C-alpha cells in the first residue's frame, strides 16, 4: 500500500494505492486520524486501490464515523467495481459521497 496526501482548496485528498489489508490497516488508520484533524472536506482517491480486506475496511469506518460526528463530507472517488462491492456488502458505501474522479468530487463539494 502507498499513501499520498494533497490539498486542493479546503479539501484534503488522500490517495490510497495498492492492497489494503491487516498488515497496513494500522498505518492507514493513523493517516486517517491525521487527515480528520485537518479542517475541511476529505476526498479519498481509491482508483488505484486494488484490494481491501475485512481488516482493511476498518480505517474507512473510522474515517466515516469521525466525519459523521464532525458533520464533514467524505468523498470516495474512483471506486472500482470489486471494491465498490466490498463496501456495499459491508454496508459502508452509503457512508461516503461516491464520485468518479477527484475533480468531480471537489466540484460537487458544497460551497
Amino acid at each position, binding site marked *: 500500500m502507498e499513501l499520498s496526501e494533497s490539498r486542493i482548496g479546503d479539501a484534503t485528498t488522500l490517495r490510497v494505492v495498492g492492497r489494503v489489508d491487516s498488515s497496513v490497516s494500522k498505518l492507514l488508520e493513523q493517516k486517517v486520524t491525521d487527515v480528520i484533524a485537518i479542517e475541511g472536506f476529505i476526498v479519498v482517491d481509491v482508483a488505484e486501490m486494488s484490494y481491501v*480486506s*475485512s481488516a482493511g475496511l476498518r480505517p474507512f469506518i473510522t474515517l466515516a464515523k469521525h466525519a459523521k460526528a464532525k458533520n464533514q463530507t467524505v468523498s470516495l472517488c474512483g471506486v472500482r467495481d470489486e471494491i465498490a462491492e466490498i463496501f456495499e456488502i459491508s454496508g*459502508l458505501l452509503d457512508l461516503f459521497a461516491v464520485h468518479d474522479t477527484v475533480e468531480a468530487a471537489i466540484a460537487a463539494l458544497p460551497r
Partner: protein
Amino acid sequence: MLDRTTLRKTTFARLFEPADTRPRSLAAWIFLNIIVLAAYSLAGLVVVLFGIGPAKISPIYPPAGIAVAATFLLGPRILPAIFLGQFCNGFPLLSLPQTTLSMYALANSGTGVGSILEALIALGVLRALAGTWHPFDRARNVVIFLVGSCLAAACVGGTIGTLSLWAFGFVPSDELAETFVTFILADAAGIAVFGALILAWYREPRLNLHIVAHAVVILIATAAIASLETWLRYPIDYLYLPLLLFAGFRAGPRSVTLAAAAITIAAILVTIAGIGPFVGKTDAESILLLEVFVAVITFTGLLLVAVRAQQLEAEAALQAYNAMLEQRVSERTAEVAQKNRLLEEKQARIDDDLHTARILQESILPTDFSAYAGAGIAASMRPALEVGGDFYDVFPLGDGRLGLVIADVSGKGMAAAFFMAVTRTLLRGTALAGASLAECIAHVNRTLCRENPIDMFVTVLYAELDERTGAVNFVNAGHCEPIVTAPNGTARLLRRSGNPPLGVIADRVFAEHSLILAPGEMLFLYTDGVTEAANQAGEFFRVRRLVDVAQRFADRSPHDLMLAVTDSVDRFSVGTMQADDITCLVVRRNLAA
C-alpha cells in the same frame, strides 16, 4: 587617614607573614632568638673552620640560609638574633693587629644590617610574587625563589656587607670587586641550599621509613661518590646528577634539598682537598667554580621537585575527578536500578490485572454446550494479546430457539476487551429480554453509538436458530461471511447483506436474512483473524483456504471442523506472531432433532 595606616600595616604584615603565625610571649621570642643566634653562630664557626685558603673564605655561607629560613618561618621578630649573629660572626677580624673595637663594631653593624635586609627581602619577594613561604609546589615559584629570595636578596646583603667591611679598612680596595662577588654568591648559595633544606623539612617534619631510607641512601651515595673521587682523583662529579634525579622523582623536596646540601658539602670538601674539577688556579677561582656548580645543582633539584609536585597535583586532581565520575556513575546506576524496580513492580501489577482480565473474559465465553440437544456446538477464542476484542456467545431464547453471536471489536487490548464485554452483555441482555432480532440489533447499535466516547465499533453476526426446524434468522452487521457446510462435502458462503458494523451509524436499519439448516448441515462463524492470518511470506489464509477445510471436514463433528480450521491456520502461519484474535463458532443441526 586611619584607613591608609591600617592598610599599610596590613600590606606590611602580609608581605612579611611567616609560616608560623602563632602568638608568642616575649619570653618565647627571646628563647627562639637565642636558639637561632646559636645556630647562626655555629654555622658561622663551621665556615671559619672549613674556609678555603688562608683567608678561610667559603664558597657558601650557611648562616645566610639559616637567617632567611628563620625569617620565613618566624617572621621579622627573629631579626635581632640574625643581627647579633652576624655581628659576632666577624670575630676573626679581631685577631688582625690594626682592628680597634669601634672599627669592628661599626663594620659588623653594617654586615648585620645587611643580613637583616637580605632576610626581609628574601621573604618579601616570595610573599609578594608567589604568595607563599616556600618554593616547592610551582616551577614559577622556584625561579622567583632563586632569582629573588637568593640572588637579589644576597645582592643587597652582600653589597652592604662588603661596603661596610671596606669602609672600615677590612677589605683592601683592590680586592673590593672580588669580595663583592664572593660575598653575594656565598650568601645566595647559602640561602638556596640551606634555606631551602630547612624550609623543606619544616614543611614536612614527620619522619617515616620512606624518607629516612631515602635520606640514608642519598647521604651514603654522596659520601661514596666523594670518596671514589678522592681515591681515583678523577672529576666524576657528574655522578651526582642521577642521585639528584632519584631524590627529586622518588622522594620530593626534603630529599632533593638534602641531596643538594650533601652534594654541596661533599664538593667543597673534595675541592678543599685539592681534588676534582672545581680546583682552580687560585682560591677565588675555585670558589667561583664551586658556586656555579652549587647554583646548577640547586636550581635543577628544586625545579625538578616543583615540576614533579605539579605533576602529582594534576594526577591527584585527575584521580579525584575520576573518583567523582565513578561516584556519579554508581549513583546513577543505583537510581536506574531503583526506577527499574519500580517499573518491574508496576509491570507486575499490570500483568496481574491483565491476567485477571483474561480470566474474566474467558469466564464470560460459554464452553459447555451440552444443554442444547438439537444442536452440536463448538467454539474457541484465542486472543493475540493477553486479552482480546473478539467474542462469541450462545444462549437459549426459549421455545427451542438458540441465540448465536460472533463479534469482532475494532482494535485490540484492554479497550477492545472492555468494549467486547459491554457489547456482549448488551446484546445478550436485549435478546433475553425478548426483543426481536432486528429490534435487538438496532437497540445495541443505538446504545453503542451513544455510549462510545472512544470511537470504537464492532462487527457482529447475530443469528437465531430454531433447533426443531433448523430455521436460522440472522443479521450480519459488517462481519465476515459465514459458511454453511453440508455432510456431502459442499460448503457455501452466505453473502453479506450491506449492513455496517454496530456503533457507526445510530439510526441505521439493519437487513435481516434467513435460511434453513438441513439436518447435518453446519453453520461456521469466524472472525477475520482466521482469514487474515499471515504466513512468513506475508500471504493471508483467506476465505478460499477456509472453504477448502470446511469442505473436507463437512461430514465431521463441529468440534473436529473447528480444530481442523485452527490447526490449518496454525500450520499456515507457523513462525509468525499472531496478529489478531482468532475466533470460531460452529453449530450443526443434529440429525436426531
